[in-house]
Structures are given as C-alpha cells and as structure tokens.
C-alpha cells in the first residue's frame, strides 16, 4: 500500500521528542528566575515547531523520516516514523502548544499560581509524550509514550491541590491507567497474532486469519484502551471532572494533547492496526459508529444542561471527539479527510473557547454560564473570539468547523450511510443550542461585572490569534502547514488514492 | 504380604512421628511445645533417611579389616548417614536460635502462650 513512498533515516522525530524533554531540567534549574524559565518553555516550543515543519517538504515528496533506536522488547523496536498522519498530528500539537505556552504564562502569572516550575516542567513532558505518540512507528512505542502522557498529565490535573482536584486526579488516573492496561493486553495479543507491531497503512493484522470472536474481543480491548482518552461514552466521565485543573491544562487536555492522543490512537488502531478491510469484514465499524453517534447525541444534551462553562465545554469536547471517531468508523476517504480535518480544526476552535473561559475566569472570576450577562461589553475581543469558536463548532462557514463537518457528511453519503448525516446535522443544531445562548447573554444582556477592560495581553493575543487562525483555516485549509494536503495524503495512503 | 509389611512398616511409624511433630508445631500454643514438635519432626525426617539406608544382610559402614571392598552390598549405604549428620547439626542450630527467640519473647511479653502473645501484640499496636 505504500505507494511510491520511500523512507529515510532522520534524527528529527527523536529530536522533536527530546527538545521539550531537554527543556525540563533547564526549567527546573531556572525555577528561581521566572523569565528565564519561561524563555526555555517558549524556546523549546519554537524549536519543536521548527523541527516538525522541517519534516514537511520531504513528506510532501512522499519521503518518510524514520528512526530506529533498537529493540525495546524483542521483536519490537523503539522506532519513530514521521508518516503523514504522524506529522499531521505533530503539527497540530506543536503549533498549538506554542499558543498554549504564551497563554499559560499569562494565566499563571495572572492568578499567581503556586508551583509554576512544576507546572511548566510537566507541561513540557506532556508535549514530549505527545510528539512520541505522533511519531511512534509501532504499537509498543505508542504505548510507552501513551503511558508517559498519562502519568505526566496527572500532576497537571491536580495542580490546584484542592480536595476536588485530587479527587479529579484519582478519577483521571483510574480511567487512564485502566485503559493503558487494556492497551497492553491488546498489544501483546496482537504481537502474538502478527509477530510484529509496526503500524502499516491498511492494517498490520490484514493478512492474519481471524475468527470473528477473536476480532471482536481484540477490537474491544483496543477500543477500551484508546477510547478512554478519546472520551467515547461511557468512558468519558473523567473528562468533565478533570475540569478542576487550571484552564491552560484544560486546553491542553481537550484540545492538544490528551484527548487528541486518544482519537489519534483510534485512527491508528482502526486504520493502521486493523485496517478498513478487517473493520468491514467483521462489521467492527458498527461498534465505532454506534458508540460515536450515541456519544455525540448524549454529550450534546449533557452540555445543554450544564451551567459551568468549562464543564459545558468539556461535554462539547466529548461530542466533537466522537465526530472524529465517527469519521474513522465510516471507512471512506472523504470521511477520513473530515475526521483528520476535525482533529485539527476542533483543536483550534476548542482551544480558543478554553482560552476565553480562562480569560474570563482570570479577569472576572466567573465560571458559570448564568453569570456571564454583559461580559461581551467588558471583554469584546475575548467574547468575539468565543463567538468565532462557537460558530465554528456549530458548523457554519466561514469558520473552519464547517469544512470538516462537510467532509464528514460527504463521507457518510459516500459510504451510503445517510443516518449519520442526520446525526451530524442534529448535533450541529444541539451545538447551536448550547453555544448561542452564551453569546446572547454576553452581548445582548446587561449585567454587573465589576471590572472594565480586557484581560492581560499575554492571554488575549493568543486567543484572538487562534480565533483568526480558525477563520483562516476555514477559508483556506491549506494555509501554512498544508493541513488539507497532508490529510489528503493520509487518505490516499490508506485507501489507495481513491477520493 | 509379610514381606511387604516388613519392608514398609517402618516408614509408616516414621510418617506418624512426622505428623505428630507437625501437630505439635501447628496446634500446640506453647512456644516450647512448638520447639519440641520441631525436634520430633526433625527426628522423623532423620529416621526416614536412616531407615531407607538399610540393606538386607549388610553391616555397619566401618571397615574392620582395612581391605578393598569389592561388593558394595556388604555394607549399609553410608550416604544418608552423612546427610543426616548434617541435618542433626542444622536441627541443633535451629533449636538454639528458637531458644534465643523464646527467651527474647518471654523477656518482652512475659508469656510463652501464643494466644496471650497475640493479645499482647494487639495491645502494643500504636493508636
């Protein structure tokens, strides 16, 4: 299936992992000098983005960077491979990390948070793990970074160290560690079936004779493994609880690292471990489709009745993650395109929304939707960005959300499954139902805010930038990093150029 | 049948002794009794080895005339004897350690009864 793709050995994938890991000791050592410390964070972010971008040109010429570090367990190497999907994900993560870093600095300084060094250190570790997930060439490497991500996020979730945060941390760990355990079980089983664990477009298990029972059990195990981070219902409940974390962490959890790793894992498992053929042959796609549609609908209703802004956003995330899963389950090239685009676009939109929520919290100390009356007059830029994000998530042009949704709908039609088109439209309406009242409150109602002016520039600039980015990507999806082209490339690799 | 009994009855007595020793170890509550059970248990094991070393029509494994031995059937198997010498010493050493421990326990808790001991251990539990 590797149509005229060649590989070359390159250190870049490893460097992208190491660059933020290397920043950790620097961050810790300069804990007493905040400016220097945050310089390291930003420097690592820029370096990482530059490294990922440097992979782009050769990728577009169908040359894939690989790096093999030797065996980690016999038969399985610790190997990196910057294929289209990996670079795609890495691009999203590293570019948005930069935004998140700037924003974090504003946020933690604005609130004068404690233990900022620990915060930034684990932030960097998280990003390293995410890069590792993106570039892992096989399941074992994937699991290693997946688990590191789990552990590294824990200190961030409980950063506030309140009773509630610790409880949230426990819940988070309980869910994600259990998932990791399932993933290991699934991986070992796969290893015994296939003899290797390398990700192969079209599925590494493609040529293995299967019994339906085995296929279903294995796929269920995998889905339990990656589904927790992807917040597929009923495995989602850690996510709203984890809102106890500081807002940049929520942004990281929801938009960049953790949940996206989860859906990334779903894509990897669905298309690179099992492959479209196997999914179709054993009707495993129904498992994906059913769980995803149920999640979309139920999560939207839950968001509708939630008053806490961040929790509402969290449920919205749960719903939107399942869009991506749905796209995988539809097994068609346009749906996959829509999936991948949503992976990127949801990140920009949701990160905007979280940044807004954080800015409101830092500036006005408001967390509830019902308290937001008239906020739009005080913080026009912030609420403007919020409106942009909402519009995008509802799926209206020109914000980028419409494009991915449109692709998904096209995919549903192309796969002759119009039911899911209806679900997408219904979900769009529900999105509108829980987002537009917020905008209405903010701009068209009068309320007591007690403060005037915007939050600090370090926060407002990133959120405005991400909002602008969302719009630009909606108009011109190939902007800058050529998201559209890369996503297209992924589809081509998997479905063999049919699109 | 008689031959079978003659060839095996010793094992049955020995195993009975072994179980008696175990009974002392497990069921008796007094620590000294436990050590006594331990001794009986060890004696039973030693007897098992010794009993198995016998041979029909053989004699004690000490040469009297200092001649080369041609026929090994003439002497009792000396290997289990050697092993059991070692086992006896191990037994003495174990008993010695057990005595030391019992004296320490008695000094600290003024009792040798395991039930009372457990109660006093519970009392000691902090908080």
């Amino acid at each position: 299936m590797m149509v005229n793709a060649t590989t070359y050995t390159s250190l870049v994938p490893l460097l992208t992992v190491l660059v933020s890991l290397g920043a950790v000791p620097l961050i810790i050592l300069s804990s007493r000098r905040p400016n220097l410390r945050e310089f390291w964070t930003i420097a690592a972010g820029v370096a990482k983005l530059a490294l990922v971008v440097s992979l782009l040109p050769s990728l577009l010429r169908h040359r894939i960077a690989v790096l093999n570090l030797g065996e980690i367990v016999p038969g399985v190497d610790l190997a990196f491979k910057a294929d289209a999907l990996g670079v795609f994900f890495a691009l999203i993560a590293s570019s948005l990390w930069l935004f998140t870093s700037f924003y974090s600095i504003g946020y933690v300084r604005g609130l004068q948070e404690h233990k900022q060094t620990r915060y930034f250190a684990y932030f960097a570790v998280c990003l390293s793990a995410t890069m590792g997930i993106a570039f892992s060439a096989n399941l074992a490497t994937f699991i290693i970074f997946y688990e590191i991500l789990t552990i590294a996020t824990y200190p961030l979730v409980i950063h506030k160290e309140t009773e509630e945060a610790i409880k949230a941390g426990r819940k988070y760990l309980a869910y994600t560690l259990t998932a990791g355990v399932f993933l290991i079980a699934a991986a070992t089983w796969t290893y015994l079936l296939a003899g290797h664990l390398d990700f192969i477009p079209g599925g590494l298990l493609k040529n293995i004779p299967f019994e339906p029972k085995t296929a279903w059990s294995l796929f269920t195990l995998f889905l339990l493994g990656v589904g927790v981070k992807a917040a597929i219902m009923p495995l989602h409940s850690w996510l709203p609880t984890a809102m106890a974390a500081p807002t940049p962490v929520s942004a990281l959890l929801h938009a960049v690292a953790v949940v996206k790793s989860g859906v990334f894992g779903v894509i990897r498992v669905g298309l690179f471990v099992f492959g479209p053929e196997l999914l179709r042959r054993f009707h495993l796609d129904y498992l994906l489709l059913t769980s995803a549609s149920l999640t979309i609908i139920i999560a939207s209703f839950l968001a509708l009745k939630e008053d806490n802004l961040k929790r509402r956003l969290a449920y919205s995330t749960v719903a939107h993650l399942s869009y991506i899963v749905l796209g995988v389950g539809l097994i068609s090239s346009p749906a996959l395109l829509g999936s991948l685009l949503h992976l990127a676009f949801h990140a920009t939109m949701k990160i905007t929304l979280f940044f807004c929520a954080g800015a409101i919290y830092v500036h006005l100390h408001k967390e509830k939707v019902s308290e937001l009356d008239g906020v739009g007059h005080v913080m026009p830029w912030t609420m403007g960005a919020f409106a942009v994000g909402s519009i995008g998530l509802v799926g209206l042009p020109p914000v980028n959300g419409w494009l991915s949704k449109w692709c998904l709908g096209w995919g549903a039609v192309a796969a002759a499954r119009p039911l899911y088109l209806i679900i997408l439209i219904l979900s769009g309406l529900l999105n509108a139902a829980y987002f537009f009242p917020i905008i209405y409150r903010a701009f068209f109602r009068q309320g007591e805010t007690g403060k005037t002016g915007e939050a600090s520039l370090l926060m407002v600039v990133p959120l405005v930038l991400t909002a602008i980015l969302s719009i630009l990507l909606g108009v011109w999806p190939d902007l800058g990093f050529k998201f559209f082209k890369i996503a297209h490339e992924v589809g081509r690799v998997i479905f063999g150029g049919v699109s | 049948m008689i031959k079978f009994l003659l060839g095996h009855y010793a094992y049955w007595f020995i195993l009975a002794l072994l179980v008696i020793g175990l009974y002392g170890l497990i069921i008796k509550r007094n620590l000294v009794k436990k050590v006594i059970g331990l001794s009986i248990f060890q004696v039973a094991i030693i007897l098992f080895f010794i009993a198995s070393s016998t041979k029909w029509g053989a004699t004690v494994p000490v040469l009297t005339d200092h001649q080369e031995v041609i026929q090994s059937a003439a002497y009792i198997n000396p290997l289990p004897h050697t092993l059991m010498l070692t086992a006896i010493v191990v037994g003495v050493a174990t008993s010695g350690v057990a005595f030391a421990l019992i004296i320490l326990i008695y000094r600290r808790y003024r009792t040798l009864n395991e039930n009372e001991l457990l109660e006093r251990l519970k009392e000691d539990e902090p908080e």
Partner: protein
Amino acid sequence: MRVVNYILLGVFFLLLIYASTSLFYRGDLEALVNREKSPANSPNAAAYYIRHAYHDTHSPNMVTAILADYRGYDTLGEETVILTAGLICFLLLRRERKKKKKSSPEKKQ
C-alpha cells in the same frame, strides 16, 4: 480452624502413607539406591563410596570419609549453620560487659 488443621494433617499423613507403599522394600538390593549403576549409566554415589572410601582416604569409617571429603562442602555449610546459630545468640542475647547500668544510654532506635 483447629478442625481444618486436624483434617489437613490427616490428609497429609494418608497421602504420605500411600506414597510410601510404592517405595522399594527397605534393604532391597534392587532399589536404585543400592545398585552399582544408575539407569542413565552414571555411577551410583553410595556404591562408589563403599568401594573406594578406604582407597581414597585411608579412612575405614566411610561416613567420615564422605562427611569430610566427598561431600566436604556440605560439612563446611553445616559448620556455617552452627556458626550462624552462635552469632544469632550473640546478636540477640549477649549483654554488654563494659556498662554496668541496665539501660545503656545509646538505646536502639
């Protein structure tokens, strides 16, 4: 609990008895222990000791010869065991001779 222990002991006893019935007769010269060669055609240690002990060590008492020479390493272990016991009693019980006071100032812990 006590009943369980008795039952366990009884079962154990019966099992051992059952096993012992299929042992060779005591003193049976055909038993593997008493043969000159094992089925794998390796020499039988006991027979070797009986025949060669005096020749090898000038010791008419075979047990001594085995104890101190053929299996001398076991005996070294045996001495070590008894040394261990002595050291344990030393460690646990020996009194400090220099200090007259019953409770020495540097009490442990």
